[in-house]
């Protein structure tokens, strides 16, 4: 603090100095001070001015914060010692100086000490006005800070209430004494009421209100920094002698120094607060970003975003989405669930007006943000449908609101609404920029999710084109099929290669079932899957036996996959002849996992070895024949079942057999559902591969 003081005294015409440390080293001495004391800067007073009385006064000021004075014989001066932070302020007067000057100097010293301890502009303003006015014998005073073309009162005293109120905040206006002083950087002296009326007729009623006569308007400037002005008013006319002017200017210079120091301090604190806020916001955006990537539905993600927002950024948060020609509120959050419920009831009773300008629905449609830093009561009155509605929305206590569009590639997907209510906080431009950033990030994430959903639905449509929409009703058989695509692994959505089908044969009572698995995924796998389905249907219709059908299929595949060698499929195909006692089965396998047959509580695999299809021109296939009695069940599946992996290793045929033996599921549908559940649960809900299941039960 002594550094600030050292700077400050440099501008003052009175002999002043500053010492620091218990050694009383002189750290500053202004020009007037040097004239009296000589060049003593940088050395301890004990060395340069070895005088017991002076050292005692310095000790008292430094250690005990007690001001005092000492008269020195050589040089013939009086030195006042005033405690200031971390040091002592010296004021020096030559012997024989008149008393009024001495009093002024000591008052000035007091003010300097007080100002050096004040931190905020308001505090300094109060000191400048009260202490200075007292020192100067002023009856009214005010200190104004300047921001651009606006002057704002920091503190004032002694003026009429109406004047004080009217000049809290006002524009700089050339031709008025205070403004002229600020604009020109030159003091304006008005000595009496007559001068007011003559020089400033427009302002005279204000300047002389309450019987004031003289006024001094003194600009506060430090170097080129224009801080505002001090005004001192007197109830008696004053001639403002040269001495008096100099004294007023000195007081003003002291105040200006202190104001400048506090202004810098405040600016620095604000910069630090802004930086910290910026850091908080970046952290928040990162958290929100991670959240938007979570494997949740769009609504869940937006609700989580809203929840996160009300924990950190606003009292209320809502998200709206454009859906076709509607705009739906899909998430709303407040830290108090009671309030959320209250607003939900309110909106049910009084649905929001879609035409309300600046409302979430309008912002969603137009893509133009709306920002109401201070929500005036008139806005609520305008929005209210009736008195009760008004009372209810007033009870929410809305203070500040902003609504920003969820913009992506120039298109608005919806809107993010942030509201401050009971916290009493107010959004500013920084909040608006932040909210826009948050909304934009969310919109991009939403857009990605939307593209992904589209891709997924295309894949699902394609997949269902490869699978029968419904299984045929087959007399004497109960059929059930289940298909579940693999969980998304982040690499995108692909059409799987699993296929099952049930086809009527060329003779009554004859049916064919197929289960196949094409290796790989994507368009090539899908086209091969389609080829398999159509070829099988055609060949079955020709009345060929199962092994012959697969030989034909193999040839068709080898021809088709010539361009993509190594693209193969495993297939199991059975021909079913239903009779009154059950079903005769002819089954052939081509590298496919063996079907299981359940007879009562016995479960056994149907082993029909064979070569996979699509790679070799000739394949070895063996056909097996067996019967399914009434109530017997055959289960066909893909390796998505047996290669399902859980914490205990692979699901495997042994678990599949155990499930069929021990499951309480009886009907084909129950078995298919139970098995799918069991496999999905086994993998902890995440499917590594597509799962297809086809259950054939001979009529019970």
């Amino acid at each position, binding site marked *: 603090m002594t550094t600030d003081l050292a700077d400050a005294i440099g501008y003052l015409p009175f002999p002043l100095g500053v010492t620091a440390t218990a050694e009383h080293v002189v750290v500053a001495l202004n020009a007037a001070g040097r004239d009296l004391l000589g060049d003593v800067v940088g050395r301890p007073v004990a060395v340069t001015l070895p005088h017991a009385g002076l050292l005692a006064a310095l000790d008292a000021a430094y250690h005990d914060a007690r001001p005092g004075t000492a008269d020195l014989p050589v040089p013939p001066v009086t030195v006042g010692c005033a405690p200031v932070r971390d040091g002592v302020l010296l004021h020096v007067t030559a012997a024989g100086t008149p008393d009024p000057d001495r009093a002024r100097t000591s008052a000035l010293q007091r003010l300097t000490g007080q100002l050096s301890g004040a931190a905020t502009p308001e505090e300094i303003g109060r000191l400048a006005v009260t202490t200075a006015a007292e020192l100067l014998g002023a009856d009214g005073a005010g200190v104004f800070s300047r921001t651009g073309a606006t002057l704002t009162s920091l503190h004032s005293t002694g003026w009429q209430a109406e004047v004080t109120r009217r000049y809290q905040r006002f524009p700089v206006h050339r031709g008025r004494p205070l403004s002229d002083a600020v604009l020109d950087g030159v003091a304006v002296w008005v000595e009496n009421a007559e001068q007011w009326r003559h020089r400033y007729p427009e302002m005279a009623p204000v300047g002389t209100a309450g019987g004031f006569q003289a006024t001094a308007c003194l600009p506060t400037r430090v170097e080129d920094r224009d801080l505002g002005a001090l005004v001192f008013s007197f109830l008696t006319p004053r001639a403002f002698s040269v001495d008096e002017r100099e004294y007023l200017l000195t007081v003003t210079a002291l105040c200006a120094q202190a104001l400048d120091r506090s202004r810098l301090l405040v600016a620095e604190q604000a910069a630090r607060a802004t930086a910290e806020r910026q850091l908080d916001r970046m952290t928040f955006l990162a958290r929100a970003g991670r959240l938007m990537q979570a494997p949740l539905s769009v609504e869940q993600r937006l609700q989580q975003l809203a929840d996160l927002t009300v924990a950190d950024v606003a009292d209320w948060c809502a998200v709206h989405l454009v859906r076709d020609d509607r705009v739906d509120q899909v998430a709303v959050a407040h830290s108090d669930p009671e309030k959320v419920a209250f607003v939900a009831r309110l909106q049910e009773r009084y649905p929001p007006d879609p035409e309300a300008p600046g409302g979430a629905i309008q912002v969603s449609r137009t893509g133009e943000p709306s920002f109401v830093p201070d929500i005036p009561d008139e806005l609520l009155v305008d929005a209210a449908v009736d008195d009760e509605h008004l009372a209810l929305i007033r009870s929410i206590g809305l203070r500040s609101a902003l609504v920003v569009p969820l913009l992506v590639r120039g298109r608005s997907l919806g809107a993010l609404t942030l509201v401050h209510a009971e916290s009493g906080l107010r959004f500013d431009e920084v909040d608006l920029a932040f909210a826009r950033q948050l909304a934009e990030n969310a919109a991009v994430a939403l857009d990605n999710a939307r593209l992904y959903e589209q891709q997924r639905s295309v894949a699902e449509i394609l997949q269902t084109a490869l699978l029968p929409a419904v299984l045929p009703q087959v007399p004497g058989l109960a059929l059930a099929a289940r298909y579940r695509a693999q969980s998304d692994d982040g690499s995108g959505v692909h059409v799987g290669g699993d296929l099952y089908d049930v086809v009527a044969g060329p003779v009554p009572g004859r049916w064919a079932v197929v289960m196949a698995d094409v*290796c*790989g995924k994507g368009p090539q796998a899908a086209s091969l899957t389609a080829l398999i389905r159509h070829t099988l249907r055609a060949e079955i219709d020709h009345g060929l036996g199962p092994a012959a059908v697969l030989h034909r299929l193999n040839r068709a595949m080898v021809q088709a996959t010539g361009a993509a060698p190594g693209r*193969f499929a495993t297939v199991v195909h059975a021909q079913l002849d239903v009779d009154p006692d059950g079903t005769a089965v002819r089954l052939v396998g081509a590298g496919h996992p063996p079907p299981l047959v359940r007879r009562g509580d016995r479960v056994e695999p149907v082993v029909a070895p064979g070569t*996979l299809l699509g*790679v070799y021109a000739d394949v070895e296939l063996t056909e097996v024949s067996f019967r399914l009695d009434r109530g017997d069940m055959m289960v066909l599946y893909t390796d998505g079942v047996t290669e399902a992996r859980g914490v205990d290793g692979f699901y495997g045929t042994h678990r599949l057999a155990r499930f069929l033996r021990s499951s309480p599921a009886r009907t084909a549908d129950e078995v298919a559902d139970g098995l799918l559940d069991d496999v999905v649960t086994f993998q902890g809900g995440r499917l590594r591969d597509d799962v297809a299941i086809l259950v054939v039960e001979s009529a019970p």
Partner: protein
Amino acid sequence: MTAPAEGPPGVAEVVLCGELDIATLDDAERQVEAAAAAAPPLLVIDLSGLTFVDSSGVRLVLLADDRARSAGRRLAVRLGTGHALRVFQALGLLDKLDVLPARPAEGAAHRLAPG
């Protein structure tokens, strides 16, 4: 890393172990391609150390076999007695591929890494 085992001239051998599926396929493909780059008359892929192989792994072998045949060279596999043997047997491939017995001594094996 290629892991050519000790053997007669004209034979390159790749020894894969661990799991061969979509996650490790790229690594396995690099191993096989590196071994095939010198166009050895006989390329041996040793799968006997695999604890898992899925259809993409099977396809890798079928493609290597197809390339070798087209180039008039030979590809053989070692399947051991574990998982790989069961998979290739179930797919009906034991008669289609050149299957060699397990190597007598354990050499340098490439443990597959997800890529």
